[in-house]
């Protein structure tokens, strides 16, 4: 078609026979019909699936004035109320000066009960179907730290098993985070208190951060998160546990809506053996400072240079005890 047209230049223009008009008309109509048919799945879109004008124009977290933030918070509250029939208590809690949060996990104590995994899900409004979990507990054979030998899906009537130790992994809140580096739109960044956060309203869902993370700490909402109304935790903040939407990234944020107000993370509170320690490393008297000073701590994959704020340690034992109770 186009070639004839081009070759003959102007001569064909203006001379349209009835037959060619009908033929072309029919094919244009058929084409349009096919195109409309192809777009048909879009009819299933619910109005709330598409961003409203205000949501579309909402600025990046760091660019919002306090007025704009309160408007955004109100918008989010309305949306949550509409969906869950509960008015949430949502705030934008800022980092405090002189605070840098650090986590320390005692591998000698951890028994692999996964209570932290479920407490985290309950606290942070993750999707339940499919369930998104921020913490992955590895069952490691004693004598190695080779993660490939870990069992991710151990399912035993009783833990701990004699020949294993248990290693929970979650976001390490790195001081040199590869995920922040790669994000094309600065939707994820490290806060002054050391927590790497995500603006769920800014993320475009490219999943580059997920590919970059050496600790497999990030989770993506491949479908619309499903959270039953009764399971909603109404205490939420903008940068942490407010309900997420389809197509965005999320991950552990050290429960910043709790920890920035002086409470402990949910995973720590639930731990039955006290394996989890959390606090401000800039305070020399804090428990974590003491642990970093006195225990033999290590970080996972030190060679990738991420400088995690998540430390592991084993309790030292008296040589005499070694016989009957191993690490």
């Amino acid at each position, binding site marked *: 078609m186009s070639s004839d047209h081009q070759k003959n230049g102007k001569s064909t223009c203006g001379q349209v026979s009835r037959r060619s008009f009908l033929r072309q008309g029919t094919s244009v109509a058929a084409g349009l019909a096919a195109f409309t048919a192809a777009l048909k799945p879009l009819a299933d*879109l619910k109005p709330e699936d598409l961003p409203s004008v205000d949501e579309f124009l909402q600025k990046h977290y760091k660019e919002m004035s306090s007025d704009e933030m309160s408007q955004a918070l109100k918008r989010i509250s309305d949306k949550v109320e509409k969906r869950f029939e509960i008015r949430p208590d949502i705030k934008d809690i800022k980092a405090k000066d002189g605070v840098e949060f650090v986590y320390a996990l005692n591998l000698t104590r951890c028994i692999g009960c996964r209570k932290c995994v479920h407490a985290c899900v309950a606290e942070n409004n993750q999707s339940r179907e499919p369930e998104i979990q921020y913490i992955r507990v590895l069952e490691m054979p004693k004598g190695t730290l080779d993660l490939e030998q870990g069992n991710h899906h151990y399912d035993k009537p009783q833990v701990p098993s004699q020949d294993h130790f248990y290693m929970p992994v979650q976001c390490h809140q790195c001081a040199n985070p590869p995920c922040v580096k790669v994000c094309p739109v600065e939707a994820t960044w490290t806060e002054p208190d050391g927590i790497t956060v995500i603006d769920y309203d800014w*993320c475009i869902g490219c999943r*580059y951060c997920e590919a970059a993370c050496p600790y497999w700490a990030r989770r993506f909402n491949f479908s619309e998160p499903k959270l039953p109304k009764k399971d909603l935790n109404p205490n939420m903040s903008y940068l942490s546990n407010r309900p997420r939407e389809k197509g965005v990234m999320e991950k552990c944020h050290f429960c910043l809506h709790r920890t920035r107000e002086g409470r402990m993370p949910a995973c720590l509170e639930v731990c039955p053996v006290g394996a989890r320690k959390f606090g401000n490393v800039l305070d020399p008297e804090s428990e974590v400072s003491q642990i970093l000073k006195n225990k033999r701590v290590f970080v996972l994959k030190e060679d990738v240079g991420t400088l995690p704020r998540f430390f592991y340690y084993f309790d030292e034992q008296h040589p005499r005890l070694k016989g009957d109770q191993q690490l």
Partner: protein
Amino acid sequence: MLVLSLISLVGLNAYCKQFVQGLSTTGMTDQVSWGMYIANFTFLVGMAAAAVMLVIPVYVYKNKELHDLVIFGELLAVAAIVMCLLFVTADLGRPDRFHHMLLRFNFPISMLTWDVLVLNGYLALNLHICGYLVYCAYKKETPSKKFYIPFVFIAIFWALSIHTVTAFLYVGLGGRPFWNSAIIAPRFLASAFAAGPAFLVLTLQIIGKYTMYNVPRKALLTLKNIITVALTINMFLLICELFTEFYTDSTHVASMKYLLFGLHGKHALVPWIWSGIGLNTFALIILYLPFTKSLPFINVACVCMIIGIWIEKGMGLIVPAFIPTPLGEIVEYLPTLNETLVCLGIWAFGLLLYSIFVRITVPVLNGRLTIDKDFIYKEYYHD
């Protein structure tokens, strides 16, 4: 073209489903978070640079056979880049927030922002060069060298940059040892310089057969030489990589082992990669045999190589980097039907675009030959 349009529409339909339901319509998971979309994107970035393999001999070494074929290479580049951009868009979880790119562009830190710049820049350069040359041919004017030669040279370096930047996208991730290797970028270039011209060899013959356009056989043979060298280098680099990984035999070899032999009983990629390597080796042997100078043999080699490199770049470069995960878990990836339809749709749309370009360009270039004496294309048509 009707078939291509139909497949494009089927792909559009599949994409609409994905848009409504989310990326759960694909086979991707938190474990393997990039799949067919990014794999095809990577392969097509390679194809896009095929143009440069025609441009270098023409403008740098003044090779006359390839001279007027350059424009077909650059049109291919345009179509390939359009496909690349479509694949990246299809991969986004929130395409409705695309404008965030313009508002907070994490440049120069994020390699993805570099990729956005170089790909769009390359698209603009090629559109300019093709558009200008075709426009001049249409107006029966001599193209002014000032308006395109500098751009041609920029495009040569730019083509290298789209590869390099796309390779750097993967190479810079310390948490993925499979990608974290300096050889990825050169291997990527070498395989692109084989697959791209191979695709052109096939396309040019189709153009020569179905249009009035005369494609000199010598030009195809020049392309064949380029392909042979590029494929040889590609295979050499592959051997280098395999040696480093397997002789060292550190824990970093896990992904490579999974790719080539399977790991802990999981081996979905094994048949693919061996057919890829097999096809490439077969193509290389054909190209080196002395009695295979005839076009049918070259065509067989080209087809084998395009498929081989597509497997190598797609299945062999993107997916295994995610298996095992950084925490040692092995979750395999299998594209879903919907995802495959989206891919086919984008491919069909790209090829449709290319056919339209060619169908416009060929008559324009042909139509002017008897009139303008100074036009650069003159000597090849004036026979």
